[in-house]
Protein backbone atom coordinates (compact mmCIF):
# COMPACT_ATOMS: atom_id res chain seq x y z
CA UNK A 1 0.00 0.00 0.00
CA UNK A 2 2.75 2.45 1.02
CA UNK A 3 4.62 1.73 -2.22
CA UNK A 4 1.56 2.55 -4.29
CA UNK A 5 0.94 5.78 -2.37
CA UNK A 6 4.60 6.65 -2.88
CA UNK A 7 4.14 6.07 -6.61
CA UNK A 8 1.14 8.44 -6.65
CA UNK A 9 3.19 11.05 -4.82
CA UNK A 10 5.93 10.66 -7.42
CA UNK A 11 3.37 11.04 -10.20
CA UNK A 12 1.90 14.15 -8.57
CA UNK A 13 5.22 15.63 -7.53
CA UNK A 14 5.11 18.76 -9.68
CA UNK A 15 1.34 19.19 -9.65
CA UNK A 16 1.44 18.85 -5.86
CA UNK A 17 4.24 21.34 -5.47
CA UNK A 18 2.74 23.94 -7.76
CA UNK A 19 -0.94 23.58 -6.92
CA UNK A 20 -0.93 22.73 -3.22
CA UNK A 21 2.22 24.42 -1.96
CA UNK A 22 2.16 27.60 -4.06
CA UNK A 23 -1.25 28.27 -5.64
CA UNK A 24 -3.40 27.23 -2.69
CA UNK A 25 -1.99 29.80 -0.21
CA UNK A 26 -1.50 32.38 -2.97
CA UNK A 27 -5.18 32.31 -3.95
CA UNK A 28 -6.12 32.46 -0.28
CA UNK A 29 -3.85 35.33 0.65
CA UNK A 30 -4.09 37.50 -2.46
CA UNK A 31 -7.76 37.36 -3.40
CA UNK A 32 -9.27 35.64 -0.38
CA UNK A 33 -10.80 32.84 -2.46
CA UNK A 34 -13.10 30.37 -0.67
CA UNK A 35 -10.63 27.84 0.65
CA UNK A 36 -12.88 24.83 1.05
CA UNK A 37 -14.12 25.11 -2.52
CA UNK A 38 -10.53 25.67 -3.61
CA UNK A 39 -9.44 22.54 -1.75
CA UNK A 40 -12.09 20.43 -3.45
CA UNK A 41 -11.03 21.90 -6.80
CA UNK A 42 -7.45 20.82 -6.06
CA UNK A 43 -8.28 17.22 -5.11
CA UNK A 44 -10.15 16.45 -8.33
CA UNK A 45 -7.37 17.27 -10.85
CA UNK A 46 -4.77 15.65 -8.63
CA UNK A 47 -6.68 12.36 -8.46
CA UNK A 48 -7.73 12.58 -12.12
CA UNK A 49 -4.14 13.15 -13.25
CA UNK A 50 -3.16 9.81 -11.71
CA UNK A 51 -5.75 8.00 -13.78
CA UNK A 52 -4.59 9.92 -16.83
CA UNK A 53 -1.02 8.73 -16.20
CA UNK A 54 -2.27 5.13 -15.79
CA UNK A 55 -4.33 5.38 -18.94
CA UNK A 56 -1.54 6.87 -21.02
CA UNK A 57 1.17 4.43 -19.96
CA UNK A 58 -0.97 1.28 -19.47
CA UNK A 59 1.13 0.91 -16.34
CA UNK A 60 -1.61 -1.11 -14.61
CA UNK A 61 -0.44 -4.05 -16.71
CA UNK A 62 2.88 -3.90 -14.91
CA UNK A 63 1.42 -3.14 -11.49
CA UNK A 64 -1.06 -6.04 -11.60
CA UNK A 65 1.69 -8.43 -12.69
CA UNK A 66 3.61 -7.56 -9.52
CA UNK A 67 3.02 -9.31 -6.18
CA UNK A 68 0.30 -6.98 -4.94
CA UNK A 69 -3.38 -7.72 -4.44
CA UNK A 70 -5.74 -6.00 -6.85
CA UNK A 71 -7.87 -4.77 -3.96
CA UNK A 72 -4.80 -3.06 -2.49
CA UNK A 73 -4.13 -1.33 -5.82
CA UNK A 74 -7.64 0.13 -5.71
CA UNK A 75 -7.57 1.01 -2.01
CA UNK A 76 -4.22 2.77 -2.29
CA UNK A 77 -5.74 5.41 -4.52
CA UNK A 78 -8.50 6.06 -2.03
CA UNK A 79 -5.89 6.35 0.69
CA UNK A 80 -3.88 8.73 -1.47
CA UNK A 81 -6.98 10.87 -2.16
CA UNK A 82 -7.62 11.20 1.56
CA UNK A 83 -3.95 11.92 2.19
CA UNK A 84 -4.12 14.91 -0.18
CA UNK A 85 -7.31 16.16 1.47
CA UNK A 86 -5.86 15.97 4.97
CA UNK A 87 -2.40 17.34 4.13
CA UNK A 88 -3.77 20.20 2.01
CA UNK A 89 -6.34 21.05 4.69
CA UNK A 90 -3.72 21.11 7.47
CA UNK A 91 -1.50 23.21 5.24
CA UNK A 92 -4.35 25.68 4.68
CA UNK A 93 -5.01 25.75 8.42
CA UNK A 94 -1.35 26.46 9.15
CA UNK A 95 -1.13 29.16 6.47
CA UNK A 96 -4.38 30.64 7.79
CA UNK A 97 -2.98 30.94 11.29
CA UNK A 98 0.27 32.45 10.05
CA UNK A 99 -1.60 34.98 7.90
CA UNK A 100 -4.03 35.94 10.63
CA UNK A 101 -1.17 36.35 13.09
CA UNK A 102 0.86 38.43 10.65
CA UNK A 103 -2.01 40.59 9.43
CA UNK A 104 -4.04 40.91 12.61
CA UNK A 105 -3.64 44.67 12.60
CA UNK A 106 -4.76 45.17 9.02
CA UNK A 107 -8.35 44.35 9.73
CA UNK A 108 -8.59 41.58 7.11
CA UNK A 109 -11.14 38.91 8.00
CA UNK A 110 -9.54 35.62 6.90
CA UNK A 111 -11.45 32.39 7.35
CA UNK A 112 -9.37 29.91 9.38
CA UNK A 113 -10.58 26.36 9.98
CA UNK A 114 -11.64 25.16 13.41
CA UNK A 115 -12.28 21.52 14.33
CA UNK A 116 -15.84 21.63 12.96
CA UNK A 117 -14.65 22.94 9.61
CA UNK A 118 -11.90 20.34 9.52
CA UNK A 119 -14.34 17.50 10.21
CA UNK A 120 -16.65 18.82 7.52
CA UNK A 121 -13.78 19.16 5.02
CA UNK A 122 -12.44 15.64 5.63
CA UNK A 123 -15.97 14.30 5.12
CA UNK A 124 -16.53 16.41 2.00
CA UNK A 125 -13.15 15.28 0.68
CA UNK A 126 -14.09 11.65 1.32
CA UNK A 127 -17.33 12.15 -0.62
CA UNK A 128 -15.51 13.82 -3.53
CA UNK A 129 -12.96 10.98 -3.63
CA UNK A 130 -15.81 8.45 -3.37
CA UNK A 131 -17.47 10.00 -6.44
CA UNK A 132 -14.30 10.56 -8.43
CA UNK A 133 -12.47 7.19 -8.27
CA UNK A 134 -15.21 4.71 -9.26
CA UNK A 135 -15.97 6.80 -12.35
CA UNK A 136 -12.48 6.11 -13.66
CA UNK A 137 -12.85 2.42 -12.93
CA UNK A 138 -16.33 2.18 -14.42
CA UNK A 139 -15.54 4.07 -17.62
CA UNK A 140 -12.68 2.82 -19.73
CA UNK A 141 -12.38 6.15 -21.55
CA UNK A 142 -10.49 8.65 -19.39
CA UNK A 143 -11.89 11.73 -21.13
CA UNK A 144 -15.50 10.54 -20.89
CA UNK A 145 -15.04 9.82 -17.18
CA UNK A 146 -13.54 13.28 -16.63
CA UNK A 147 -16.42 15.00 -18.43
CA UNK A 148 -18.98 13.07 -16.36
CA UNK A 149 -17.05 13.93 -13.20
CA UNK A 150 -16.99 17.64 -14.04
CA UNK A 151 -20.74 17.56 -14.73
CA UNK A 152 -21.47 15.80 -11.42
CA UNK A 153 -19.29 18.24 -9.47
CA UNK A 154 -20.87 21.23 -11.18
CA UNK A 155 -24.39 19.99 -10.38
CA UNK A 156 -23.41 19.32 -6.74
CA UNK A 157 -21.84 22.76 -6.39
CA UNK A 158 -24.76 24.50 -8.08
CA UNK A 159 -27.40 22.76 -5.97
CA UNK A 160 -25.50 23.48 -2.76
CA UNK A 161 -25.16 27.18 -3.61
CA UNK A 162 -28.70 28.19 -2.62
CA UNK A 163 -28.66 26.49 0.81
CA UNK A 164 -25.16 27.89 1.44
CA UNK A 165 -26.26 31.42 0.58
CA UNK A 166 -29.37 31.08 2.74
CA UNK A 167 -27.58 29.63 5.74
CA UNK A 168 -24.86 32.31 5.69
CA UNK A 169 -27.53 35.02 5.67
CA UNK A 170 -26.64 36.57 2.33
CA UNK A 171 -30.08 37.88 1.43
CA UNK A 172 -29.60 40.26 -1.46
CA UNK A 173 -26.08 39.36 -2.61
CA UNK A 174 -23.71 36.37 -3.04
CA UNK A 175 -20.24 36.96 -1.74
CA UNK A 176 -18.33 33.90 -2.95
CA UNK A 177 -15.29 34.56 -0.80
CA UNK A 178 -17.37 34.03 2.35
CA UNK A 179 -19.45 31.12 1.20
CA UNK A 180 -17.21 28.45 2.77
CA UNK A 181 -18.29 29.39 6.27
CA UNK A 182 -21.66 27.98 5.37
CA UNK A 183 -20.63 24.30 5.14
CA UNK A 184 -20.54 23.73 8.90
CA UNK A 185 -23.74 25.76 9.33
CA UNK A 186 -25.41 23.54 6.76
CA UNK A 187 -24.23 20.41 8.57
CA UNK A 188 -25.58 21.69 11.87
CA UNK A 189 -28.86 22.81 10.30
CA UNK A 190 -29.72 19.69 8.31
CA UNK A 191 -28.14 16.75 10.12
CA UNK A 192 -29.65 15.31 13.31
CA UNK A 193 -27.79 15.25 16.63
CA UNK A 194 -24.76 14.76 16.81
CA UNK A 195 -24.28 16.35 13.36
CA UNK A 196 -20.54 15.80 12.94
CA UNK A 197 -20.67 12.18 13.99
CA UNK A 198 -23.62 11.67 11.67
CA UNK A 199 -21.72 13.36 8.83
CA UNK A 200 -18.59 11.30 9.48
CA UNK A 201 -20.56 8.05 9.52
CA UNK A 202 -22.40 8.96 6.31
CA UNK A 203 -19.18 9.94 4.52
CA UNK A 204 -17.41 6.79 5.76
CA UNK A 205 -20.29 4.65 4.52
CA UNK A 206 -20.21 6.30 1.08
CA UNK A 207 -16.43 6.01 0.94
CA UNK A 208 -16.56 2.31 1.83
CA UNK A 209 -19.35 1.62 -0.66
CA UNK A 210 -17.44 3.43 -3.41
CA UNK A 211 -14.26 1.51 -2.60
CA UNK A 212 -16.06 -1.84 -2.77
CA UNK A 213 -17.63 -0.88 -6.10
CA UNK A 214 -14.23 0.12 -7.52
CA UNK A 215 -12.65 -3.09 -6.26
CA UNK A 216 -15.39 -5.16 -7.87
CA UNK A 217 -15.05 -3.37 -11.23
CA UNK A 218 -11.26 -3.50 -11.14
CA UNK A 219 -11.25 -7.24 -10.41
CA UNK A 220 -13.69 -8.04 -13.20
CA UNK A 221 -12.18 -5.80 -15.83
CA UNK A 222 -9.55 -6.87 -18.38
CA UNK A 223 -6.43 -4.73 -18.31
Amino acid sequence: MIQLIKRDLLLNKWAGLVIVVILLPLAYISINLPITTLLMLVIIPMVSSLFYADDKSHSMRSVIAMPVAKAVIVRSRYAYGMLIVIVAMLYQWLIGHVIVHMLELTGHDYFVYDWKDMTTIVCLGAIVVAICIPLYHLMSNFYAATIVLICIMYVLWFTSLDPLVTVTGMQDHIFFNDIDRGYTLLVEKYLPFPPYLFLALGAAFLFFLSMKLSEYVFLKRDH
Partner: protein
Amino acid sequence: MNAAELSSITKHRKDFSMENINMTIPEGFVTGLIGPNGSGKTTIIRMMLGLMQPDHGEITLLGTTHKDHRVKQHIGFVHDDLYMYDHFSIKQMKSFIAPFYTHWNEDLFQAYLEAFHLPYRKKIKTFSQGMKMKCSLLFALAHEPEFLIMDEPAAGLDPVFRRELLDLLQEKMLNENQTLFLSTHQTADLDRIADYIVFINEGHIVLQKSMDEIHERFHVVKGKPNMIDADTKELFVGVHVTDTGFTGLFAGDPAIFDVYGSEIIIEKATLEDLMYFVTKQEREASQNDTTY
Protein backbone atom coordinates in the same frame (compact mmCIF):
# COMPACT_ATOMS: atom_id res chain seq x y z
CA MET B 1 6.07 -30.70 -11.70
CA ASN B 2 4.64 -28.04 -13.96
CA ALA B 3 5.43 -24.36 -13.53
CA ALA B 4 2.03 -23.51 -15.00
CA GLU B 5 -1.14 -25.36 -15.87
CA LEU B 6 -4.06 -23.97 -17.80
CA SER B 7 -7.15 -26.18 -17.57
CA SER B 8 -10.22 -25.75 -19.77
CA ILE B 9 -9.65 -22.03 -20.24
CA THR B 10 -12.36 -20.23 -22.15
CA LYS B 11 -12.31 -16.54 -22.93
CA HIS B 12 -14.72 -14.61 -25.11
CA ARG B 13 -14.01 -11.08 -26.21
CA LYS B 14 -15.80 -8.88 -28.73
CA ASP B 15 -13.65 -9.90 -31.68
CA PHE B 16 -11.89 -12.98 -30.38
CA SER B 17 -12.69 -16.27 -28.68
CA MET B 18 -10.59 -18.86 -26.97
CA GLU B 19 -12.14 -22.24 -26.30
CA ASN B 20 -11.10 -24.99 -23.93
CA ILE B 21 -7.39 -24.25 -23.70
CA ASN B 22 -5.42 -26.93 -21.85
CA MET B 23 -1.75 -26.29 -21.55
CA THR B 24 1.16 -27.20 -19.31
CA ILE B 25 4.52 -25.51 -18.91
CA PRO B 26 7.05 -27.94 -17.45
CA GLU B 27 9.32 -26.66 -14.71
CA GLY B 28 12.99 -26.12 -15.48
CA PHE B 29 12.59 -25.88 -19.26
CA VAL B 30 12.12 -23.29 -21.97
CA THR B 31 8.62 -23.37 -23.46
CA GLY B 32 7.88 -21.29 -26.50
CA LEU B 33 4.42 -20.07 -27.42
CA ILE B 34 4.09 -19.53 -31.14
CA GLY B 35 1.25 -18.51 -33.38
CA PRO B 36 0.32 -15.88 -35.94
CA ASN B 37 -0.84 -12.38 -35.01
CA GLY B 38 -4.14 -12.38 -33.17
CA SER B 39 -3.98 -16.09 -32.36
CA GLY B 40 -4.26 -15.53 -28.59
CA LYS B 41 -0.64 -15.57 -27.37
CA THR B 42 -0.84 -12.28 -25.49
CA THR B 43 -4.28 -13.17 -24.12
CA ILE B 44 -2.86 -16.36 -22.60
CA ILE B 45 0.05 -14.47 -21.03
CA ARG B 46 -2.22 -11.73 -19.71
CA MET B 47 -4.54 -14.31 -18.17
CA MET B 48 -1.59 -15.99 -16.49
CA LEU B 49 -0.47 -12.66 -15.03
CA GLY B 50 -3.97 -11.79 -13.84
CA LEU B 51 -4.51 -8.93 -16.28
CA MET B 52 -7.44 -10.72 -17.85
CA GLN B 53 -9.96 -13.02 -16.27
CA PRO B 54 -10.82 -16.30 -17.99
CA ASP B 55 -14.56 -16.86 -18.39
CA HIS B 56 -14.08 -20.48 -17.38
CA GLY B 57 -11.21 -22.70 -16.31
CA GLU B 58 -8.35 -22.70 -13.87
CA ILE B 59 -4.80 -21.41 -14.03
CA THR B 60 -2.17 -22.57 -11.58
CA LEU B 61 1.30 -21.05 -11.32
CA LEU B 62 4.00 -22.88 -9.37
CA GLY B 63 1.34 -25.05 -7.79
CA THR B 64 -0.85 -22.15 -6.63
CA THR B 65 -3.87 -20.48 -8.18
CA HIS B 66 -2.85 -17.49 -10.27
CA LYS B 67 -5.32 -15.39 -8.28
CA ASP B 68 -2.99 -15.50 -5.29
CA HIS B 69 -0.80 -12.44 -5.78
CA ARG B 70 1.92 -13.88 -3.51
CA VAL B 71 2.91 -16.41 -6.17
CA LYS B 72 4.12 -13.47 -8.27
CA GLN B 73 7.01 -13.06 -5.83
CA HIS B 74 8.57 -15.93 -7.80
CA ILE B 75 7.55 -14.77 -11.27
CA GLY B 76 9.32 -12.32 -13.52
CA PHE B 77 7.47 -10.83 -16.48
CA VAL B 78 8.40 -9.02 -19.64
CA HIS B 79 5.48 -7.53 -21.55
CA ASP B 80 5.56 -6.71 -25.25
CA ASP B 81 6.31 -3.09 -24.26
CA LEU B 82 7.52 -1.30 -21.15
CA TYR B 83 4.25 -0.41 -19.47
CA MET B 84 5.47 2.21 -17.05
CA TYR B 85 4.98 5.95 -16.48
CA ASP B 86 7.11 7.56 -19.15
CA HIS B 87 8.43 10.36 -16.97
CA PHE B 88 9.83 7.88 -14.47
CA SER B 89 13.52 7.10 -14.56
CA ILE B 90 14.96 3.66 -13.78
CA LYS B 91 15.87 5.05 -10.36
CA GLN B 92 12.24 5.99 -9.68
CA MET B 93 11.01 2.71 -11.12
CA LYS B 94 13.31 0.84 -8.78
CA SER B 95 12.14 2.79 -5.74
CA PHE B 96 8.58 1.84 -6.66
CA ILE B 97 9.06 -1.77 -7.79
CA ALA B 98 11.90 -3.20 -5.65
CA PRO B 99 10.09 -3.09 -2.27
CA PHE B 100 7.33 -5.35 -3.64
CA TYR B 101 9.80 -8.23 -3.95
CA THR B 102 11.18 -10.01 -0.92
CA HIS B 103 14.00 -11.56 -2.98
CA TRP B 104 15.15 -8.35 -4.67
CA ASN B 105 18.85 -8.66 -5.42
CA GLU B 106 20.39 -5.20 -5.58
CA ASP B 107 23.81 -6.47 -6.69
CA LEU B 108 22.21 -8.38 -9.55
CA PHE B 109 20.17 -5.30 -10.47
CA GLN B 110 23.30 -3.16 -10.61
CA ALA B 111 25.14 -5.83 -12.61
CA TYR B 112 22.39 -6.03 -15.24
CA LEU B 113 22.02 -2.25 -15.29
CA GLU B 114 25.67 -2.03 -16.25
CA ALA B 115 25.55 -5.00 -18.63
CA PHE B 116 22.54 -3.57 -20.49
CA HIS B 117 24.12 -0.06 -20.66
CA LEU B 118 20.97 1.57 -19.33
CA PRO B 119 20.98 5.14 -17.93
CA TYR B 120 19.87 5.18 -14.29
CA ARG B 121 18.51 8.72 -14.08
CA LYS B 122 17.19 9.36 -17.58
CA LYS B 123 13.42 9.40 -18.14
CA ILE B 124 12.17 6.27 -19.88
CA LYS B 125 10.28 8.36 -22.44
CA THR B 126 13.66 9.08 -24.00
CA PHE B 127 14.45 5.36 -24.33
CA SER B 128 14.50 3.52 -27.65
CA GLN B 129 12.33 0.43 -28.07
CA GLY B 130 15.33 -1.79 -27.44
CA MET B 131 16.25 0.10 -24.26
CA LYS B 132 12.68 -0.25 -23.01
CA MET B 133 12.83 -3.99 -23.55
CA LYS B 134 16.15 -4.18 -21.73
CA CYS B 135 14.63 -2.16 -18.90
CA SER B 136 11.71 -4.62 -18.66
CA LEU B 137 14.17 -7.46 -18.56
CA LEU B 138 16.26 -5.73 -15.91
CA PHE B 139 13.29 -5.56 -13.53
CA ALA B 140 12.13 -9.05 -14.45
CA LEU B 141 15.47 -10.61 -13.56
CA ALA B 142 16.51 -8.56 -10.53
CA HIS B 143 14.30 -10.44 -8.07
CA GLU B 144 15.67 -13.80 -9.21
CA PRO B 145 12.38 -15.33 -10.35
CA GLU B 146 11.88 -19.07 -10.59
CA PHE B 147 9.56 -18.59 -13.51
CA LEU B 148 10.04 -16.01 -16.23
CA ILE B 149 7.12 -15.11 -18.51
CA MET B 150 7.95 -13.08 -21.60
CA ASP B 151 5.65 -11.71 -24.28
CA GLU B 152 7.58 -10.99 -27.48
CA PRO B 153 10.82 -10.18 -25.65
CA ALA B 154 12.81 -9.87 -28.87
CA ALA B 155 10.56 -7.16 -30.29
CA GLY B 156 12.53 -4.01 -30.97
CA LEU B 157 15.88 -5.53 -30.13
CA ASP B 158 18.82 -5.32 -32.49
CA PRO B 159 20.21 -8.68 -33.66
CA VAL B 160 23.29 -8.38 -31.46
CA PHE B 161 21.39 -7.83 -28.24
CA ARG B 162 18.77 -10.39 -29.26
CA ARG B 163 21.50 -12.98 -29.52
CA GLU B 164 23.00 -11.85 -26.22
CA LEU B 165 19.58 -12.03 -24.60
CA LEU B 166 19.08 -15.60 -25.78
CA ASP B 167 22.51 -16.55 -24.50
CA LEU B 168 21.75 -14.93 -21.16
CA LEU B 169 18.43 -16.73 -20.87
CA GLN B 170 19.99 -20.03 -21.84
CA GLU B 171 22.79 -19.52 -19.30
CA LYS B 172 20.26 -18.78 -16.56
CA MET B 173 18.33 -21.88 -17.48
CA LEU B 174 21.42 -24.04 -17.17
CA ASN B 175 22.80 -22.47 -14.00
CA GLU B 176 19.68 -21.69 -12.03
CA ASN B 177 17.15 -24.21 -13.30
CA GLN B 178 14.62 -21.50 -14.05
CA THR B 179 11.49 -21.98 -16.09
CA LEU B 180 11.07 -19.76 -19.09
CA PHE B 181 7.87 -19.26 -21.03
CA LEU B 182 8.01 -16.92 -23.97
CA SER B 183 5.84 -15.99 -26.87
CA THR B 184 7.52 -14.84 -30.01
CA HIS B 185 7.26 -14.39 -33.73
CA GLN B 186 10.98 -15.00 -34.02
CA THR B 187 10.67 -18.75 -34.35
CA ALA B 188 14.37 -19.00 -35.17
CA ASP B 189 15.09 -17.91 -31.58
CA LEU B 190 12.96 -20.75 -30.28
CA ASP B 191 14.62 -23.22 -32.63
CA ARG B 192 17.80 -22.37 -30.73
CA ILE B 193 16.64 -22.42 -27.12
CA ALA B 194 13.19 -24.00 -26.68
CA ASP B 195 12.63 -27.41 -25.11
CA TYR B 196 8.85 -27.39 -25.61
CA ILE B 197 6.56 -25.66 -28.06
CA VAL B 198 2.93 -24.67 -27.76
CA PHE B 199 1.40 -23.61 -31.06
CA ILE B 200 -1.80 -21.62 -30.90
CA ASN B 201 -3.95 -20.53 -33.80
CA GLU B 202 -7.28 -18.69 -33.79
CA GLY B 203 -7.78 -19.27 -30.08
CA HIS B 204 -7.13 -22.99 -29.94
CA ILE B 205 -4.03 -25.06 -29.33
CA VAL B 206 -2.86 -26.76 -32.48
CA LEU B 207 0.18 -28.50 -31.10
CA GLN B 208 1.93 -28.98 -27.80
CA LYS B 209 5.11 -31.03 -28.03
CA SER B 210 8.76 -31.17 -27.07
CA MET B 211 11.28 -29.91 -29.61
CA ASP B 212 12.66 -33.46 -29.87
CA GLU B 213 9.25 -34.78 -30.85
CA ILE B 214 8.79 -31.95 -33.34
CA HIS B 215 12.16 -32.64 -34.94
CA GLU B 216 11.42 -36.33 -35.07
CA ARG B 217 7.89 -36.03 -36.38
CA PHE B 218 7.76 -33.03 -38.71
CA HIS B 219 9.65 -32.82 -42.00
CA VAL B 220 9.57 -30.56 -44.99
CA VAL B 221 9.35 -32.50 -48.23
CA LYS B 222 10.28 -30.88 -51.55
CA GLY B 223 9.77 -32.26 -55.03
CA LYS B 224 8.65 -31.58 -58.60
CA PRO B 225 5.15 -30.18 -59.14
CA ASN B 226 4.00 -33.17 -61.20
CA MET B 227 4.50 -35.43 -58.16
CA ILE B 228 1.68 -33.78 -56.28
CA ASP B 229 -1.97 -34.62 -56.92
CA ALA B 230 -5.13 -34.75 -54.83
CA ASP B 231 -4.15 -38.08 -53.26
CA THR B 232 -0.54 -37.22 -52.42
CA LYS B 233 -1.67 -33.83 -51.10
CA GLU B 234 -3.59 -35.72 -48.42
CA LEU B 235 -0.29 -37.00 -47.03
CA PHE B 236 0.75 -33.52 -45.97
CA VAL B 237 -0.31 -31.19 -43.20
CA GLY B 238 0.04 -28.38 -45.71
CA VAL B 239 1.41 -28.00 -49.22
CA HIS B 240 2.66 -25.06 -51.22
CA VAL B 241 2.82 -25.70 -54.95
CA THR B 242 4.49 -23.46 -57.52
CA ASP B 243 5.40 -23.94 -61.21
CA THR B 244 8.86 -25.12 -60.24
CA GLY B 245 8.01 -27.51 -57.41
CA PHE B 246 6.10 -28.26 -54.24
CA THR B 247 6.99 -27.93 -50.59
CA GLY B 248 4.92 -29.77 -48.03
CA LEU B 249 4.92 -30.30 -44.30
CA PHE B 250 4.79 -33.97 -43.46
CA ALA B 251 3.95 -35.37 -40.04
CA GLY B 252 5.14 -38.91 -39.41
CA ASP B 253 7.90 -41.25 -40.47
CA PRO B 254 9.56 -39.79 -43.61
CA ALA B 255 10.73 -43.28 -44.61
CA ILE B 256 7.59 -43.64 -46.73
CA PHE B 257 9.22 -41.28 -49.24
CA ASP B 258 12.29 -43.49 -49.63
CA VAL B 259 10.84 -45.02 -52.80
CA TYR B 260 11.19 -41.66 -54.55
CA GLY B 261 14.95 -41.66 -54.00
CA SER B 262 16.70 -38.47 -55.06
CA GLU B 263 13.56 -37.00 -56.64
CA ILE B 264 12.49 -35.90 -53.18
CA ILE B 265 14.34 -33.72 -50.70
CA ILE B 266 13.50 -34.24 -47.04
CA GLU B 267 14.57 -31.76 -44.35
CA LYS B 268 13.76 -31.37 -40.70
CA ALA B 269 10.98 -28.82 -40.31
CA THR B 270 11.75 -25.58 -38.54
CA LEU B 271 9.17 -23.92 -36.30
CA GLU B 272 8.60 -21.37 -39.03
CA ASP B 273 7.74 -24.17 -41.50
CA LEU B 274 5.40 -25.67 -38.96
CA MET B 275 3.69 -22.36 -38.25
CA TYR B 276 3.41 -21.44 -41.90
CA PHE B 277 1.92 -24.69 -43.17
CA VAL B 278 -0.42 -25.34 -40.27
CA THR B 279 -1.77 -21.78 -40.24
CA LYS B 280 -2.22 -21.86 -44.01
CA GLN B 281 -3.96 -25.21 -43.89
CA GLU B 282 -6.32 -24.14 -41.09
CA ARG B 283 -7.13 -20.91 -42.91
CA GLU B 284 -7.99 -22.82 -46.09
CA ALA B 285 -10.06 -25.33 -44.14
CA SER B 286 -12.06 -22.57 -42.45
CA GLN B 287 -12.62 -20.86 -45.84
CA ASN B 288 -13.90 -24.13 -47.26
CA ASP B 289 -16.19 -24.51 -44.25
CA THR B 290 -17.58 -21.08 -44.97
CA THR B 291 -18.04 -21.89 -48.65
CA TYR B 292 -19.92 -25.09 -48.10
